[in-house]
């Protein structure tokens, strides 16, 4: 109770403090060892402030799959992500991913690869304590998906995606990680025909898991 009273007095302005600054009372009393009040917003009074980067640039490469499609095999792709922190736990992210999946069966004679790329904007939310070197973010986004169709040429359509990113920051400016992102594309757009049935393709899903090298600024 006494300590609370002393802290309350400490917070008064100079004029009021002067009123109690009478001979015999030493203001330095309030600065004695053990009574350190940290003004940090995010940490406890005894933890250092987390090193929050402002900009994140990631270069990735990894697995891409069209999941249930029996005539399209697994593939690979490259990724580029740019994140800008707008809040301690929230980033805005621009993402580019381009990949190739091999056609299988007889239609592979007509076209060896299903080629596609997405350019999207989204949000990443940090889920782990910010003081940790590990990152786990929940990512969602939307944007444009480009498909190269042997029959229709380059076709653009709408994509939405969501997933998780797991990373480790081993220096203040560099880290590594892996992303797992599920895309739903061809949600809207002019449409394109598939090589097998020559009919219009509906909504398509794609799972991408690139490993990435990250740079923080």
């Amino acid at each position: 109770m006494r300590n609370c009273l002393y802290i309350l007095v400490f917070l008064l302005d100079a004029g009021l403090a002067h009123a109690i600054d009478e001979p015999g009372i030493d203001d330095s009393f309030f600065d004695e060892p053990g009574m350190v009040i940290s003004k940090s917003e995010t940490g406890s009074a005894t933890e250092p402030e987390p090193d929050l980067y402002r900009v994140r640039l990631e270069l990735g490469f990894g697995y891409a799959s069209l999941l249930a499609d029996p005539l399209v095999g697994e593939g690979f792709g490259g990724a580029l992500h740019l994140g800008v922190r707008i809040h301690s736990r929230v980033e805005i992210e621009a993402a580019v991913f381009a990949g190739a999946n091999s056609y299988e069966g007889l239609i592979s004679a007509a076209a060896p690869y299903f080629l596609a790329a997405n350019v999207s904007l989204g949000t990443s939310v940090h889920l782990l304590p910010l003081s940790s070197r590990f990152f786990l973010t929940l990512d969602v986004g939307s944007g444009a998906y480009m498909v190269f169709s042997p029959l229709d040429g380059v076709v653009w359509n709408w994509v939405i995606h969501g997933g998780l990113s797991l990373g480790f920051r081993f220096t203040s400016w560099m880290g590594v990680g892996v992303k797992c992102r599920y895309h739903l594309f061809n949600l809207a757009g002019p449409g394109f025909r598939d090589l097998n049935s020559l009919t219009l393709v509906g909504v398509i899903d794609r799972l991408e898991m690139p490993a990435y090298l990250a740079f923080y600024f």
Partner: protein
Amino acid sequence: MKQSQKWFLPMSAVVLLCSCGFTVTNERPTYDELDPEEKDAIATVLAELNAFNGQVKARTEFNIDSVVDRNRIHVSFEGLIFSANLGDNTIHVATWENLRPAQKLLVQQWFAASTADETKEKYEKFFYQFMAVSQGAKQYAYEVLTPKWVLARRSIFNFERDSIRAALSHYVAEDRQNEMWGFLSTTCKPVLDQYGAQYSQNFNKKYLQAHLPELIHSDNPTGYMYFICGWIENGKADWVNLTAELEWIADLPNTDT
């Protein structure tokens, strides 16, 4: 709510979505699922391919058995004026009934036909018979050279030109030259007359390669139809007997094409 329970719903949604089976390729209907008109089209195409296959077997060591099969004749797609062999052991032929009304009117304009029935008759003879044989000639090239070699080494212009010329030679070998060549002359003349001013100067390999998407556009493939008729006219002038035509293809890897 327990920590594990918080993740249950979103993870379940992911698993459910991953198992929904969205695909970039669609399945073709089986033969039994086709309409009667589509089955009739297949029967006509098969009759022509059987005859061509007989010629191939009689003159070479090869055959096109792989496509002489009703399950390898693909006619179920709609809204495309399309005849192709993509190297996938399938002959793709658009049936008259599966064309959109605007496409039927376009074909009527091509052939300068008076009625829809006249247009239909010409369309079926042109695509179900003559063009089907040219797709069979492509299949012969795929069997001899492999699709990978053909698609990597031959231009679309030359490949179509040669397959159409081989089809013309086939009808000579079948003693149907007067019937088919006469029909093709009558059918292609209005195409060449109407669109010659637009395409005759561009009837070459480079133009075709550079403008292929617009020439084969599903709404208006008039440009490609002009090219087909151009190949037919040139093929009648350049034709050789079918044996020479088939043997020449087998020699292709040794020449610069």
